[in-house]
């Protein structure tokens, strides 16, 4: 053992520089896994680890309608049978607009209004910005407590007054964090008012996007109670949720996200593994003589392998530790880059468990990828010290090698499954990676083969450069694979970004509205339209909207108490805005059934259903659907299925009724304008409309698009960040590969110099070789980037895809320049070696 440890120590001392790339490959991979996992874990901790605090209760009963007396009776009956209720309160929320009462202040913001009653919150705490606990007295007599950011956005302070809908509230305090307020995407910031004031203020009268909640705190597990409530409320649109279920769902979602992100990290780590494999192979090649001497001095093959295995293990551990440091650095960069979009209290520290996991992963990958090359040590015979000849015995089938290969592969699969948290996903990951690798490798082989076929190589340097790509032991295809993969990810992301930005480009989309007004009452629509016409010169398009829920499909009720239905709640359980009209819109096409003919008298109401909803509900022409409109049921025959081109949509209604059946139903109007008015005019118009029609809600599409663009940009930055890590791994492999064939290059250069080649010619060879390599890598990366972005755009995101020659061309160029730079920089010193010393030492 002493021999093994001593030799390991000495070997590390002398060859750590050569193994530096090994070390960096592992560090980069481990860094990625640890950083990504820590990021999402820390996010989970802030956002979702406490569903109970998010719900601010143990149990909630919620509805988007007023609770009907029969629903309330049912709820109360069940509640009375369970003596576990400790406390309850009611909460009501809606989206609205807030504006300062001061007429000189023209600011205006979209807000989320929440009406509460004591005790609040039932679970968790609520502190004001000042640090004092929230006191319900602040809300009494038209008081409001608002998110601090609103004081900046609306340019108001505590004590000022705000108008929300038709009511005026005085700002009595601000808060930084509200109970249950950190999760989900919201359009506006929160304002708390008294529930009583909410009801009295007329906000509930005209607006339809209201959610009512009855919250309960229980002294015991509420699972049974939830079940009883669901049974009692079957057939109604009331939903019952417990924090435990939310917790499970949240937990699952975060875990899935974490595992997918970890797989991205694993991709970088596996690339690092390819680097490790390469370095280990070269290392063994360089150590052949040393191994032979050791064997000659009496060391058995296994002991020698153990020495080098220990060396790899040590470097793997140090590399992994360094990776953890890198991860910490990466998290700090993430903090700088994304802090504004991430929760304020989020930690940016690497978690201990992820660090340990990263180190284990790093060591495993080091071992898995170096096992096969190290096995080669067995075949090194001490007799090569007497006569250096290639081992002829290698050609026969080496079972140990195959077995180790299989074990390594199984190990890699186990690692992927472990990281993915699923056998299926792990297998897909490895299969996908292998397929991508094979395709890239195949393309690399094809391109280099084609290059060699180019017969018209008159230039000496060019010919030599091409020949160098085929030098024995060349790394051409490995480099093309590694660098190509990295550049491929980056280029794909760039093309996707360009397409996404184009997709949301305001000016391109002529039917995309600039302003959307909703919740306009019948009595208001004419005046409002006139006002808009006066100010913008455009008569807004007016659409009647009726709020409805689906009750029955072909006479069968939709049971919202069922788990699957509840999970699809966002899609089918929600309240829909439906409309009625004579004609199809420009952006709609009937794909099944037929559109009604104008003037046809209806026997039964008819409805046309959007294609996606039709497939979710499994309905088609001839089926019947029953809608609940403010408690009244209307049954309609599905007469057609429409495809809506949402990219060119002014409105996109999932359900459109044939005129004649909904005109008498309670309805409001939506109005849209298309003309692009300057931002200040838009702001003034909105303000004036709100002053006259306080119940109307206005969406400034430019704001929404800006928010979406910011989301897209963050997404792109995040993916590019990961992509650049992949690229960096590729370059590490490139540098490592340059080092591997360096002695050969030195020897070749010495011979060429002796034969009269000048340094200039040798430099040209060097530049041409790496230039060609870079060009090939760029072509592969750009080619696949264009293909993948096309596939993702058309089939996954279903957005328009446009070929962007600038990005594709730049991709090739930048890759070529980078590869040339890195390759030449890593081998430049070769040009300055004196030939004699080199030739003598051979």
């Amino acid at each position: 053992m002493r021999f093994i440890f001593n030799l390991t120590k000495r070997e590390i001392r002398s060859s750590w520089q050569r193994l530096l790339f090994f070390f960096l490959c592992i560090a980069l991979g481990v860094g990625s896994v640890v950083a990504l996992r820590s990021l999402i874990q820390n996010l989970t901790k802030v956002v979702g680890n406490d569903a109970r605090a998010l719900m601010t209760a143990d149990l909630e009963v919620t509805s988007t309608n007023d609770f009907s007396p029969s629903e309330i009776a049912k709820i109360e009956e069940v509640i009375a049978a369970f003596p576990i209720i400790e406390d309850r309160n009611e909460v009501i929320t809606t989206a609205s607009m807030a504006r300062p009462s001061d007429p000189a202040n023209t600011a205006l913001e979209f807000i989320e209004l929440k009406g509460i009653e004591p005790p609040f919150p039932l679970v968790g705490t609520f502190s004001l910005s000042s640090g004092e606990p929230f006191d319900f007295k602040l809300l009494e007599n038209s008081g409001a407590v608002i998110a601090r950011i609103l004081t900046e956005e609306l340019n108001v302070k505590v004590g000022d007054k705000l108008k929300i809908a038709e009511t005026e509230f005085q700002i009595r305090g601000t808060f930084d964090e509200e109970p249950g307020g950190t999760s989900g995407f919201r359009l506006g910031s929160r304002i708390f008012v008294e529930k009583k004031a909410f009801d009295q203020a007329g906000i509930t009268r005209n607006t339809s996007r209201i959610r009512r909640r009855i919250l309960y705190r229980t002294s015991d597990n509420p699972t049974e109670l939830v079940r009883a409530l669901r049974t009692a409320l079957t057939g109604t649109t009331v939903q019952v949720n417990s924090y435990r279920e939310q917790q499970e769902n949240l937990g699952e979602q975060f875990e899935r996200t974490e595992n997918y992100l970890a797989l991205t990290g694993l991709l970088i780590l596996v690339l690092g593994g390819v680097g490790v494999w390469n370095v280990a192979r070269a290392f063994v090649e360089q150590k052949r003589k040393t191994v032979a001497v050791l064997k000659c001095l009496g060391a058995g093959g296994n002991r020698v392998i153990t020495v080098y295995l220990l060396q790899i293990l040590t470097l793997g551990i140090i590399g992994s530790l360094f990776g953890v440091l890198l991860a910490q650095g990466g998290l700090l960069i993430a903090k700088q880059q994304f802090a504004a979009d991430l929760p304020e209290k989020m930690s940016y520290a690497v978690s201990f468990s992820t660090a340990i996991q990263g180190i284990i992963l790093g060591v495993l990958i080091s071992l898995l990828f170096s096992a096969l090359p190290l096995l080669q040590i067995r075949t090194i015979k001490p007799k090569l010290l007497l006569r250096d000849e290639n081992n002829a015995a290698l050609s026969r089938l080496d079972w140990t090698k195959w077995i180790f290969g299989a074990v390594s592969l199984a190990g890699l699969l186990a690692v992927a499954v472990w990281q993915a948290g699923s056998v299926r996903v792990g297998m897909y990951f490895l299969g996908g990676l292998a397929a991508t690798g094979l395709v890239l490798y195949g393309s690399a082989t094809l391109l280099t083969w084609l290059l060699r076929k180019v017969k018209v190589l008159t230039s000496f340097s060019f010919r030599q450069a091409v020949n160098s790509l085929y030098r024995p032991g060349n790394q051409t295809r490995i480099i093309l694979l590694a660098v190509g993969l990295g550049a491929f990810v980056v280029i794909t992301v760039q093309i996707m970004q360009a397409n996404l930005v184009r997709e949301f480009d305001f000016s391109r989309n002529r039917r995309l509205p600039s302003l959307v007004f909703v919740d306009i009452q019948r009595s208001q629509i004419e005046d409002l339209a006139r006002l808009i016409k006066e100010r913008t010169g455009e008569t807004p398009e007016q659409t009647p909207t009726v709020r409805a829920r689906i009750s029955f499909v072909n006479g069968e009720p939709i049971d919202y108490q069922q788990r699957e239905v509840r999970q699809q709640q966002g899609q089918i359980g929600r309240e829909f805005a439906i409309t009625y009209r004579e004609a199809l819109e420009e952006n709609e096409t009937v794909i099944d059934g037929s559109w009604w003919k104008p003037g046809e008298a209806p026997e039964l109401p008819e409805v046309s259903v959007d294609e996606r909803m039709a497939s979710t509900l499994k309905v088609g022409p001839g089926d019947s659907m029953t809608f609940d409109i403010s408690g009244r049921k209307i049954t309609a025959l599905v007469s057609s299925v429409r495809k809506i081109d949402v990219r060119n949509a002014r409105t996109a209604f999932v359900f459109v009724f044939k005129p004649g059946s909904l005109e008498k139903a309670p309805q409001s109007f939506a109005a849209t304008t298309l003309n692009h008015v300057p931002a200040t005019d838009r702001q003034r118009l909105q303000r004036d409309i709100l002053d006259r029609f306080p119940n109307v809600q206005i969406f400034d599409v430019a704001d929404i698009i800006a928010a979406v663009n910011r989301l897209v940009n963050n997404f792109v930055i995040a993916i590019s960040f990961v992509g650049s890590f992949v690229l960096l791994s590729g370059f590490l492999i490139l540098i490592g590969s340059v080092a591997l064939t360096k002695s050969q290059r030195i020897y070749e250069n010495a011979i060429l110099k002796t034969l009269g080649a000048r340094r200039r010619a040798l430099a040209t060879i060097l530049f041409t070789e790496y230039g060609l390599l870079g060009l090939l890598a760029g072509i592969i990366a750009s080619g696949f980037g264009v293909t993948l972005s096309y596939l993702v755009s058309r089939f996954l995101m279903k957005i328009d895809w446009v070929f962007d020659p600038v990005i594709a061309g730049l991709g090739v160029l930048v890759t070529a320049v980078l590869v040339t730079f890195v390759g030449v920089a890593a081998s430049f010193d070769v040009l300055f070696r004196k030939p004699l010393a080199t030739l003598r030492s051979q």
Partner: protein
Amino acid sequence: MIQLKNVTKTVRSGAEELTILNDVSFDIAAGQFVAVTGASGSGKSTLLGLIAGLDAPSSGVISVDGDEVTAMSEDGLARLRSEKIGFIFQSFHLIPSLTAYENILIPMEILGLDNVRERANGLIEQVDLTNRGHHYPAELSGGEQQRIAIARAFANSPKIMLADEPTGNLDSKNGQHIFDLMKDLHSRNNVTLVLVTHDAALAARAERRIVLADGEVIRDDLT
């Protein structure tokens, strides 16, 4: 100490079968100093390699100190070399990543001996390189490297010392010095010394001379 019986070694060279050693048989007694000479390609180095178990003969039997080398496994041979055989090469074959001193330590550490440092110090002193122990092979001259290689070969007090043209890469002065050192260590430690050399003058100073030509022993006489 060393017995060779009908040892033949053939290798395949392209389509042809090349006989390097042809039916070679001889015994070497314990403590004897034998010089093996012959022209280039006569099979001298191969013979030495076969005795050390670095390669296996195509046919025939080789025994070293009662152990049948030709019947041993790779690891068995490694153990045999570790315990009983010291080997000196023409091109030294020191491990480049270890210092001179560490190169001497290696065989003792492989065998798991105690007090290896003291012994290494003694050996480095015997080859007169006390001040060069911390140098790497690349920082030593050829003569110095070979002296370290000799110290390494003697580190485990082997019964047999095999030297493959140890002075071949050295000038005559250094060559002489190395030869004297080996002879001195041989007589002081009473090891069996088999020396392959081109140099007739050096061979003449051995106790016995075996001459090879085309893979066969053509002369075997005591000097």
